[in-house]
């Protein structure tokens, strides 16, 4: 459909691509507010232990440090994936995305183990208000990560099928943004929940 005199329309069409990125940034704003609310709820309820089971007794430094390092590393590898994409190397792009997904999987695995262990010690979501807010905040982040893993895998399949083109580039950029965002949220969880919890 190469027709002359469509400069105006081509102009709008060109903009449609950047629309997606802008829209996603605004979506991240809304997601930020969701996490802000969950942090606020946690801040109010963290001392409402209804007797026993405080964070100091429950949180294990080794476990959450490992989770933190793994997630930070995955953010780094997703950055390396973007670099590989800029260089046009499909092989390296897919490689780094695979590493990112594997790191994300081990993060989710560790978190599930941590949650299961806490529940087995009698610290479940229904035990007291502190634990309710803890599981909701950290669990929401975990759900976001799990969703991101499925999403990233879907993008990888598309790269395998279509190679690096405008569509897949945009998708990698957006899923990368999402991944970094979850990393930032985790830094806050690490600080507000775990570090303040064990202090």
């Amino acid at each position, binding site marked *: 459909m190469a027709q002359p005199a469509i400069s105006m329309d081509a102009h709008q069409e060109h903009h449609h691509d950047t*629309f997606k990125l802008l829209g996603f940034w605004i979506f991240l704003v809304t997601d930020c507010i969701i996490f802000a609310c969950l942090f606020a709820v946690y801040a109010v309820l963290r001392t409402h232990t209804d007797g026993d089971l405080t964070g100091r007794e429950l949180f294990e430094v080794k476990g959450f440090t490992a989770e933190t390092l793994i997630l930070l590393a995955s953010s780094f590898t997703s950055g390396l994936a973007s670099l590989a994409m800029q260089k046009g190397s499909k092989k390296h792009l897919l490689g780094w995305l695979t590493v990112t997904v594997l790191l994300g999987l081990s993060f989710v695995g560790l978190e599930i183990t941590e949650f299961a262990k806490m529940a087995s010690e009698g610290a479940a979501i229904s035990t007291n208000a502190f634990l309710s807010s803890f599981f909701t905040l950290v669990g929401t982040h975990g759900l976001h990560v799990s969703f991101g893993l499925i999403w990233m895998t879907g993008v990888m399949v598309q790269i395998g099928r279509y190679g690096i083109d405008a569509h897949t580039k945009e998708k990698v950029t957006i899923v990368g943004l999402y991944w970094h965002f979850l990393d930032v949220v985790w830094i806050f969880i690490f600080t507000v929940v775990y570090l303040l919890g064990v202090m």
Partner: protein
Amino acid sequence: MGEKAKGFFVTGDPLIYGADVSIIITLLGILVFLTYFKKWGWLWREWLTTVDHKKIGIMYLVSSLLMLFRGGVDALLMRMQLAMPNTHFLQSQHYNEIFTTHGTIMILFMAMPFMFALFNIVIPLQIGARDVAYPFLNAMSFWLFFFGALLFNLSFVIGGSPDAGWLSYPPLSELAGSPGPGQNFYIWGIQISGIGSLATGINFLVTILKMRAPGMKLMQMPLFTWSVLSSCITIIFAFPVLTVTLALLFVDRFFGAHIFTATGGGNPMMYVNLIWMWGHPEVYIVVLPAFGIYSEIVSTFSKKKIFGYKSMVFSMMIISVLGYFTWVHHFFTMGAGADVNTFFAITTMAIGIPTGVKIFNWLFTMFRGRISMTQPMLWTLAFIPCFLVGGATGVMLAAAPADYQYHNSYFLIAHFHQTLIGGVVFGYLAGLYYWWPKMFGFKLNDRIGKWAFWTWNIGFYVCFMPQYALGFMGMTRRVYTYGWDMGWAPYNMVSTAGAFLMGIGFVFQVWQILYSIKHGERDLTGDPWNGRTLEWSIPSPAPHYNFAHLPEVKSDDAWWDMKNHRYGAAVPNKMKEYAPIHMPKNSGIPFLMSACWFVAGFGLTFEWIGVGIAGLAGVGICLLARSFQRNTDYYIPVDEIKATESSLGRVV
């Protein structure tokens, strides 16, 4: 399990059996009609899969009018119950359910979709765009709203309606207080449609920021566009809070958590704070676009540029920011202390200032204008005194110490109905009359419209003025009956009479629409009101692609300027060359994905985990399917544009 199955269908009340029968008859009627006239394919191709903002707007409009009917019937049932003392027309439980569904439906399933209808129909046309920024997402928003509303309304006949008030405060709305599925219907109905509202907020913000016609600067945008911009910003900051709050309530109910419970260290007042952090901005979300509508109408029908354009823009932006800092005034009685209450009392009163500025601007626009008393103008004129009284009683309520007297009384009920009906509903109706010709190509009949206008307005004052008095006399909201000794009987009787007058007004409007479909004055020019903004520069109804040529904007009131200086679309030009137009393809995914959300919501409402997971899996599959789609757009060829334009009389 047997117990559960027994409670599945709501039984025992003749009103509900009547509803069951009418629902089944209506459904059968629709199915027979579609099959007999072979309309299934048409329904799927033209409506269920459409991504055209104009059609989506019409679907929003139809749904919101249906919901206005349902919410209105709820209101009349309540007024019948309260007309006389010691009435047993409704049981207390049934009354609780009705005031809950009345409030929830009127705000979330009537006002919001009515507003989105006007966003969809007007904004792209007003800024000279061919669609919204994300047409696919726009269709998704509508269907999420639709299935959310369907889920909520289903509670009437299946499982039982929610009964904990329109904002469902815990601990009453917790599992211990409301063990049935009703409260889950509330959570999932609102949650599903809320995701759609949030997406619409993002969609129209980007549309307005990025898709304005070439040359249209921000400070040249029509005021309705500005009002939608401010409303969208508020949606983006407020709706996530609603999402979290409802999700946390569900976590409490589903997993037995203790976030808002009265036991286990939970904090019920935190819910009240959170829900009003959404709830208060929400009233500005719905009223700001109404302000925009009034601005358009006052300017058009006074034949004058709006007075104080810049101050209009600034006051709307100030309202959308300040609206976020007033939420505690809904519960001064929480006992947060004098300092906190003072802060929120001052912010609340401060909002009166930009609102007052706007009122003066409308009045000054009319001053020495050549006013024509059309239907949109009538509703605008009715709005000004009504909103003024509503605002003044609002300032009375904002005085924190005095609020301890008014709190939860009928004084409050009268106040917020006056702002929400006098401000929001009057505004949307004014907008409906104003843009109706643009949507459907004909005007709504004037004579029946005036009957509707006067019954609505007289009915409004007869209904709500006595309620201010009842509030002072000590009548609190949500009482389902009272004794003769209270002395409330005459006022309540008058109030009920007023409510029925408003009901008659609505019937007039339905008649008006049906009558005008056949006899309404056709709009052949596309500019029936001698309008000032770009939507009036194209034919009514607008062609699929809106603008054959994107307009070049040189000033504010762009279309008025084109008409006066004879350029742009005001000059028919046979030399115009068309170019192919890039448009999005229809898609069935928004409908299917929202249907999956409905299945998920229904399953989680009844705590049928399997159904819930299946629904969510369906949502995931739809998302992935969309992600893998590549050819989502097409071009309208030049020949088709030429044919359409000449059939509309636009090619000389």
